[in-house]
């Protein structure tokens, strides 16, 4: 009698989006795969919860990289190819940016017209006349970079071909979004601000955000729009988990991997908290390198110095603070009219917002999402589902002790609710039916992700995706061990992590081939 096979080709630690994506593709290639997930649900952060019979979304605001069914973007294509069926609902607008100190209140929509111009360029031009041409030019540049990145994700080219066919990417690869936006385009300050609102989806101020990532984000959202799943992010997670099992993946919940076993520089298995020692040739790991090298590798003498340097040097990106509300009236009655609002209570400045992320509260940049406008039937009749989110840095919460925890999270949440209330002119505190406050500690509790991180490492100029790709091979410090979550190549977000998982599977398959 045994619960596990003697040996697996691959053990995937963590059954979240990246882990499932990786496992599914390996299983489709005929490999024996075991997923060990510490929680009793799939999906990690991509999850929902139920309060008094009402389901509430924990995280998913906008799923990118899907595009319409008849014009699928790369993640929709991948999910189709893997036969993962999810009932997607399109989000109505791209976003509203509300920054009264700058006199900005504008709503943009995704979409590109047959003549190649962009819907949002017209919307901006309406308020800032004469900017249409430059905005179109900027978005065209973004689109070219985007397409190059996607093409090069699958193909290798010579230097000459690169320069010829992927000029936009090559030219901008060494620069930050701020440098390119301000130096290569002639746009009023307000328009630059309007077009920087998505910075929060990578948690990086535009001064240190590589233009490559900026372009990817802008083009992806503006071409494809964004989506939510009809059955919350849990629908996406369950659909992927089901598909994994159909493909023969053994998926075990409630199994925390305590140790990664290494011998002669190569992984050979894991040990779980239950005490099971399970053997394998390869491991894909959701735990961050900090955790893996810091306390999971056994024996610790197997951790190369270079690996420690790497983990210790990697700059942690943001974590999150999110207030999830169910309110007792319809959105219109609460003066809520948009799905997604980014708001700033000071003049818009991503450097300032980012630096505020070190503090506990006092956060001026908030994202407010009203689920009704994308998925009305998910919200009880006559009510509103609203979340208010900001992405502070882990240091904001490092000093919070358990005894202060409830008070701290309530006082910060209250401040955020008051800010949004004042924008709306409606006191939301008078309308709360359910409230859940998600903090960095919540993230750590449910995923055990390092320091409650949700976005992996910073997408900064000194940790650019371009450089990450360049050195990915060198950074396989322990043979057979690959990272598989937000701390990997492509970084944060649900779509990106499905891609991170796909990349991890490719890397493992390649290593298997080399080995053979």
């Amino acid at each position, binding site marked *: 009698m045994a619960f596990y096979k003697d040996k697996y080709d691959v053990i995937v630690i963590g059954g979240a989006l990246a882990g499932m994506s990786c496992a599914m593709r390996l299983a489709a290639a005929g490999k024996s795969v075991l997923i060990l997930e510490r929680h009793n649900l799939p999906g990690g952060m991509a999850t929902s919860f*139920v309060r008094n019979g009402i389901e509430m979304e924990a995280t998913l605001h906008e799923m990118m990289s899907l595009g319409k069914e008849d014009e699928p973007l790369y993640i929709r294509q991948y999910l189709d190819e893997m036969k993962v069926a999810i009932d997607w609902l399109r989000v109505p607008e791209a976003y509203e940016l509300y920054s009264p100190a700058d006199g900005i209140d504008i709503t943009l929509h995704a979409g590109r017209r047959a003549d190649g111009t962009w819907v949002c360029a017209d919307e901006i031009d309406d308020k800032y006349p004469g900017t249409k041409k430059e905005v179109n030019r900027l978005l065209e540049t973004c689109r070219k970079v985007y397409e190059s990145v996607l093409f*090069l994700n699958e193909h290798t080219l010579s230097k000459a071909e690169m320069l010829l066919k992927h000029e936009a990417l090559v030219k901008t690869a*060494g620069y930050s979004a701020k440098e390119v936006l301000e130096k290569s385009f002639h746009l009023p300050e307000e328009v630059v601000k309007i077009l920087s609102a998505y910075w929060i989806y990578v948690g990086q101020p535009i001064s240190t955000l590589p233009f490559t990532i900026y372009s990817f984000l802008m083009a992806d959202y503006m071409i494809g729009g964004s989506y939510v799943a009809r*059955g919350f992010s*849990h629908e996406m997670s369950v659909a992927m988990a089901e598909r994994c099992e159909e493909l023969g993946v053994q998926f075990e919940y409630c199994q925390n991997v305590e140790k990664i076993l290494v011998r002669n520089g190569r992984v050979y298995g894991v040990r779980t908290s239950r005490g099971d020692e399970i053997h394998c040739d390869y491991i894909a790991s959701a735990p961050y390198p900090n955790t893996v090298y810091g306390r999971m590798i056994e024996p*610790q003498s197997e951790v190369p110095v270079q690996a420690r340097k790497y983990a210790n040097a990697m700059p942690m990106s943001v974590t999150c603070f999110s207030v999830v509300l169910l309110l007792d009236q319809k959105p219109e009655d609460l003066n809520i009219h948009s799905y997604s609002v980014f708001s700033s209570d000071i003049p818009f400045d991503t450097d300032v917002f980012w630096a505020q992320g070190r503090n506990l509260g006092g956060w001026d940049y908030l994202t407010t999402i009203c689920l009704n406008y994308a998925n009305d039937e998910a919200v009880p009749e006559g009510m509103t589902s609203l979340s208010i989110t900001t992405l502070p840095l882990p240091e904001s919460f490092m000093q*919070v002790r*358990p005894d202060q925890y409830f008070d701290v999270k309530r006082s910060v949440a209250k401040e955020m609710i008051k800010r949004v209330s004042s924008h709306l002119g409606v006191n939301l505190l008078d309308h709360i039916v359910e409230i859940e406050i998600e903090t960095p500690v919540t993230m750590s509790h449910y995923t*055990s992700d390092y320091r409650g991180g949700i976005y992996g490492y910073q997408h900064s100029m000194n940790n650019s995706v371009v450089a990450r790709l360049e050195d990915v091979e060198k950074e396989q410090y322990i043979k057979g061990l690959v990272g598989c979550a937000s701390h990997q190549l492509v970084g944060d977000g649900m779509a990106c992590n499905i891609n991170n998982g796909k990349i991890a599977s490719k890397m493992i398959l390649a290593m298997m081939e080399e080995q053979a």
Partner: protein
Amino acid sequence: MKVNGFLKDVTGASRVTKARRELIEHGDPNNIYSDPIRETAKELHPEVTKVRVIDVKDVSPTARKYRFAADLGDILPPFMCGQYCSLDLEIDGTVTTRPYSICSAPFEAREGAEPFFELTIRNGRPGEGFVSSWFYENVKEGDTFKAHLPFGQFYYEPLRDSKHIVGLAGGSGITPFYSMAKEIAHGTMDADLTILYGSVSTKDIILKEELEAIDCDRVRLINVISGDEDYDGEKGFLSADIIKKYSSEDSTYFVCGPLAMYHFVRGELEKLNVPARRIRMETFGAPRDITKAEGYPEIKPALFALHVIRGIQEDLVQASSLEPIAVALERAGIKNNTRCRSGSCGFCRCKLVKGEVFVPAEGDGRRRADKENNYIHACSAYPLSECTVKIPIV
């Protein structure tokens, strides 16, 4: 390697690649791993807390209060009034758990020479409750348990609830209100509490002395007695009239008691047009008789084969149609995670691979996608045929 350094040798790319290599080269070569946020998360939600009974006291002819302190080096996590604790139990080959509301105040688990928490367990009819009678007959000072706490959403949330709480209690449902009363009296919970406590006779009042000993003008206790015409005080059930009499303009109602009381009280609150957001109900446990639940199909009580998949192993056990699958597993000695045992917390989530089950609407705390994909909460799923379930390896 199939991942392409797609900008190999291209200018611009070399600028960022160099910057990153420098960054890594300057990384600390030592193991400096520390994760204070993880430590806080673990202290707030310990997987398990080893506890020891340090005192046992009768608090009514049919209820007993057990005081627990952390055992050997463990510490008690903070909790909020109204949350519950789940105890791991092993009784005659059955591995099970039971949830009990914590009846002591949060501050008592944080302060003093020996911080503690308390549970009050009722044993109405001796020999009936499987666990409660075992508790009554066996548990004494010095016994140790594995406890899981805190759980549950039945707590006062100042951002949501009115500052005036009306507690509607019945039977052992008084326990969370005793916790609140003490926390308020101690000055660490900022609210006013009026408890309307329904009992058949004054003999049935649990924690009577303890409640009477609370001396604080923010806390009021009104016993409502249904079975004694001569009682000198509020008589009858927790009716709209009585509730109204003790309510303020904007009160939040917390309801905790037996299932029958919920149905009654819900109707009474409706008569008073209390808005939904002002009513908080505690989960009430599995129904005593599932065949009486709404929508239960016409089938005779039966024993079914239950195939249990854990990893690559499959076991065959028996399951009664009258008991939830979680109980069938426990009777067979198969460990399974449970906390609330009411269908709401999801700890017992598992996959129904084959077969048919009945899930009472009132105990269906599943997510939409789980319902659509045949995931069940084993504590609130009753077999209607031979079944196969895939459960976590515990």
